[in-house]
């Protein structure tokens, strides 16, 4: 566990890292409907970057444009220094991709798929190593149609990595997986990032984005509504902290003067102190000063999911 954490720390990108994806004012229409509305963001080398949004937010369209699978109607895009619109085939040979709702022929065997995809790259991974790494060796002769959901996802990730890509796109990787397979797949994504590959993870799952991503862009109705690390997004949006404890006899007028406190409310024996900044520390210190240290002092901070829901509601108005 310790080594994994260290590996994460080693691979975490810093602000001096090279930009591998640059998107400026990207627009896309499907007929009269505008699905991407002038979005801008960038992805740095070595980052596990999340594109988070509800269904229909424009995430998949955006990454399909980044891979040159769709053409933008406006704005500019550079991926590994290439314009996907004019160098799509060249670009797709140096990136890896796991696509939402993509598939393989039902009767194509695991080994056949790996061999075919490996043949497209100038310096592919050794297939025996790759198969071992993603637990595909025992499935080598099994047709794609006979694979379980988790086995298919492992195969798709292996196919995305077979060409030793610098950058890999993973679109709704854990969709329709059971909780156990989902956790395993998260480990898989961390392992990909730990090898130094830049990962763009597209997801509608807030927990997934929060647990995995170094940085996220939140999209809603074709727009970017937030951009930053998950904790930064939570705090930048002014999330209030609620400190709660039980004390039936405390005079709550002793608390509102503490720094950062906005309100103090008694609900029966429970006291809720709402505010910003390090109010847990201030409330705890005051209660100790009053010689009334509580046994159940707790702080509740808004989660990324709370913030995501708030953002979606705000931008939908």
């Amino acid at each position, binding site marked *: 566990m310790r080594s994994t954490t260290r590996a994460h720390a080693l691979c975490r990108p810093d602000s001096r890292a090279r930009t591998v994806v640059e998107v400026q004012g990207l627009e896309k229409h499907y007929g009269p409907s505008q699905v991407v509305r002038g979005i801008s963001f960038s992805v740095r080398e070595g980052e596990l970057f999340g594109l988070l949004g509800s269904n229909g937010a424009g995430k998949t369209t955006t990454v399909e444009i980044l891979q040159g*699978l769709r053409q933008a109607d406006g704005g500019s895009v550079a991926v590994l220094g290439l314009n996907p619109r004019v160098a799509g085939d060249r670009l797709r040979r140096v990136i890896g991709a796991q*696509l939402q709702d*993509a*598939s393989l*022929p039902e*009767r194509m065997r695991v080994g056949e798929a790996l061999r075919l995809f*490996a043949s497209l790259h100038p310096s592919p991974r*050794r297939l025996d190593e790759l198969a071992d790494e993603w637990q595909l060796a025992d499935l080598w002769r099994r047709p794609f149609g006979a694979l379980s959901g988790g086995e298919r996802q492992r195969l798709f990730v292996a196919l995305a990595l077979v060409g030793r890509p610098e950058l890999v796109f993973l679109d709704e990787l854990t969709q329709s997986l059971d909780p156990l397979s989902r956790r395993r797949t998260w480990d898989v994504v961390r392992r990909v990032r730990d090898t130094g590959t830049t990962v763009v993870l597209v997801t509608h799952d807030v927990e997934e984005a929060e647990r995995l991503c170094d940085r996220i862009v939140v999209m809603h109705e074709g727009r970017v509504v937030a951009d930053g690390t998950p904790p930064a997004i939570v705090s930048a949006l002014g999330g209030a902290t609620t400190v709660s404890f039980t004390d039936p006899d405390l005079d709550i007028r002793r608390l509102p003067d503490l720094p950062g406190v906005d309100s103090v409310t008694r609900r029966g024996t429970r006291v809720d102190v709402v505010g910003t900044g390090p109010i847990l520390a201030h409330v705890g210190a005051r209660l100790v000063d009053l010689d009334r240290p509580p046994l159940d002092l707790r702080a509740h901070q808004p989660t990324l999911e709370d913030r995501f829901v708030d953002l979606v509601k705000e931008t939908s108005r």
Partner: protein
Amino acid sequence: MTAVTVPLPDARPTPAAPARTAIRLAALELRLLAREPAVAVSLVGFPAITVLVLAGVFGETPDPDFAGVAPSDHYIVGYVGVVLAALGLITIPVRLATYRELGVTRRFRASGLSGPVMIASEIILGAVLGTVSAALVLAAGAAAYGLSLPKDPIGVLAWYLAGLACFIAIGGALGSLLPTGRAASAIGNLLFVPMFLLGGGGPPRDVMTSTMESLSDVLPLSHLIGGLRQAWLGTTDDPHALWWPVLVAIVALLAALHTARRRAG
């Protein structure tokens, strides 16, 4: 659980040139089709059985209703065209539409398989399937009823290649236009059956009504079968203008490319 140990390749595959990739993909697709019994039935089984029945019913005696040739020769040679029609109207479009519907085409494109490589692979696959199927039908007919050698082998080859191009292009156009494998199967059969019956695979032209004849005149299959019969047997009552299937091939190819580009946008 029993673990199956399979020897894995330990050599790194070398990067392939586009032509090699197209051949490799076509070879793989051929293996996949060989695992689909339904494809063999629709592509070879139906034409082979039909030609054996029709040739058997009408016999091997030269007949004026069949432009003065043996009905068995008339049908056996003509069914080379029927095989190509089945390929272009059913096999290719069903496969292409199913691939697009399931996301296989996107998966391939996202992995660096370029559009031209996939098109080249389809052409190779179509050519191999068409040739093998046509050879099997000819072999079955010749074994059962005998078959004279072609009077104009170069002409037969030219007509065969024109027919192959025409129906591979039609298959590409239908496969890119139709939204799903089921739709491709339904529309393909709807097109194939009348084209097969009126285009030279069914009753001889002499017994058709004038409306049937008019319809037959515009079908590319009529011209392909007429041309094959003319080149192989030296005579035919069917229309046989070589430019017609070639023109249909060009229009179908443009339609396929236009649709593919529109979908990609």
